[in-house]
């Protein structure tokens, strides 16, 4: 099915597969265009701040920074479309074909398969969130045991899925305002302006803190997680973040006896 083994060994250590090269490349395109958009957009949003003008000038000034912004926006929109097609194809290859092979291709099964995809939120996520709060408020000393995709990762995944449909069309409307004015009134631009600037603020504030906490600031990740480059998690990371999946993968690989106990709050990280 997948050309990647769920467990590989490197220097005697177990590594657990997470992202294919294809997905990693998409992530690189995603974050480079978002970063470019942020540094060519925010000096404009906060033009009156002292840092705005030097940064904007560095990015090409009023002449070229908008061009960079629009180019990066186009890439991001392109990626959005590409990725949507990408998972649709994957869904067809993996789920629909499987159903076909097993001769179970009914609409209801398709819906069921659709909702069982790894990025779609499910009941387990709700359980995990409740468990997490129990853990955070000291009602239990055991962190939640996440499946292959934790609810936080799902949130991260769906953030662009709600952000880009707001930011993208608004950006396009502001970009092609003259042409679009023939089919829509100017006040749409007022709405687009608020959508574009405020959703961008939300996205950037979220990315620079919450997402970066998950992959940069958190003690076990600092200075940076490596999974976006290698595509694999270490055993410790796996135990810490995806214990349920870890157990599942280990059992599937016939390594049930070697399953390690779940550990608490980074205590096994050699700190």
């Amino acid at each position, binding site marked *: 099915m997948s050309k990647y083994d769920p467990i590989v060994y490197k220097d005697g250590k177990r590594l657990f597969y997470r992202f294919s090269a294809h997905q990693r490349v998409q992530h690189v395109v995603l974050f480079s265009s978002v970063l470019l958009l942020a540094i060519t957009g925010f000096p404009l949003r906060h033009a009156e701040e002292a840092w705005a003008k030097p940064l904007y000038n560095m990015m090409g000034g009023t002449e070229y920074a908008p061009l960079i912004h629009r180019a990066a926006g186009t890439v991001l929109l392109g990626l959005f479309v590409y990725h949507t097609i990408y998972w649709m194809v994957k869904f067809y290859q993996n789920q629909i074909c499987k159903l076909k092979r097993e001769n179970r291709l009914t609409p209801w099964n398709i819906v069921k398969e659709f909702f069982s995809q790894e990025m779609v939120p499910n009941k387990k996520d709700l359980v995990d969130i409740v468990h997490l709060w129990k853990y955070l408020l000291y009602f239990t000393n055991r962190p939640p045991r996440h499946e292959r995709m934790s609810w936080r990762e799902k949130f991260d995944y769906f953030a662009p899925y709600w952000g880009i449909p707001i930011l993208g069309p608004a950006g396009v409307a502001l970009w092609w305002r003259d042409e679009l004015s023939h089919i829509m009134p100017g006040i749409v631009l007022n709405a687009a302006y608020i959508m574009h600037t405020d959703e961008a*603020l939300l996205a950037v*504030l979220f990315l620079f*803190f919450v997402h970066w*906490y998950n992959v940069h*600031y958190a*003690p076990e990740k*600092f200075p940076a997680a490596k999974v976006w480059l290698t595509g694999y998690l270490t055993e410790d990371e796996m135990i810490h973040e995806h214990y349920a999946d870890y157990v599942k993968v280990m059992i599937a690989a016939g390594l049930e006896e070697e399953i390690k106990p779940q550990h608490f709050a*980074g205590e096994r990280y*050699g*700190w």
Partner: protein
Amino acid sequence: MVKRLKKLVFKLYVIGLMAFTVWYGYFMFPLIFGFEGKEEAAASFKKGDKENTKEAQMFAKLISEQTQRKQTDLGYRLIDQPYMEGRFHHIGFNIQKDNASICVQCHGNVPHDQSKDIRSFLNMHTFYLACETCHSLPEKDSQAWSFRWYDKETGEIANNPKDLIKIEDLYASKETKRQYPVYGNYGAKIAPGYEQSGEIKFLHGNNEMAFTERYKTEQELLTPEKKSQMKRIIHRKVSKKPVQCKQCHQEKKPYVPFAELGYPPTRIRELTTVGAVGMIEKYKTFYMPALLKPGGLEIDE
């Protein structure tokens, strides 16, 4: 040991990160809740403000204007100057603060007010003469003052300003059409001093500044009599009669030795003969325009 150290580093890092989290929440707050377009607190000074007296308005205006600047962008050149309400002509330079002068601390740099005919001229001199140059004369038996330039920033003895020579060069040059001499912006002032073991000590040196500053900070605590006493001490070196215009603006041994202080010949001639002197002698009856063309540089000769 290493393990414990690691644990400590871990805890410190986590605590630091918690602090960062709190800061981030604080940092985000105005971004999220600040309603778009914070109104800039532009206080109103125009006449419609009836509640305030004119004086109070003036005060508020002066304080608010203090740091206001005006930038004029010509594309190839940016003119950055202090803003002065109602001024039409450009200033084009910054009035440099004189940190070393004791007098300016209280009297400011536009102190002359009495003689209507010459007050502006006297104020003009504060740009390059320390107050004590004119307002403090050596006592009868003591040695004569020696004059030196001092740096407005540091108060230390400075070299003779090179700009003076530049003015001279401009005079000599034929290509003066679009070049302008820089009068008075030397970053330095002439002040009197006395010789002590081979070195020149300025009158304003030593403890004088500390004295004045102490007085300024503690004057609220002083009784009225003590205040008067202190003021007397601070002003003890001020002469009753200041140096008169003609004592400097004369050809023969001017009180301030222009040549020694780096003034070039043409400029000295201007200061000690035709220009300045004619002005001084005739300022009451002088009604003949264009008579006083000094040998100096003008734009269109």
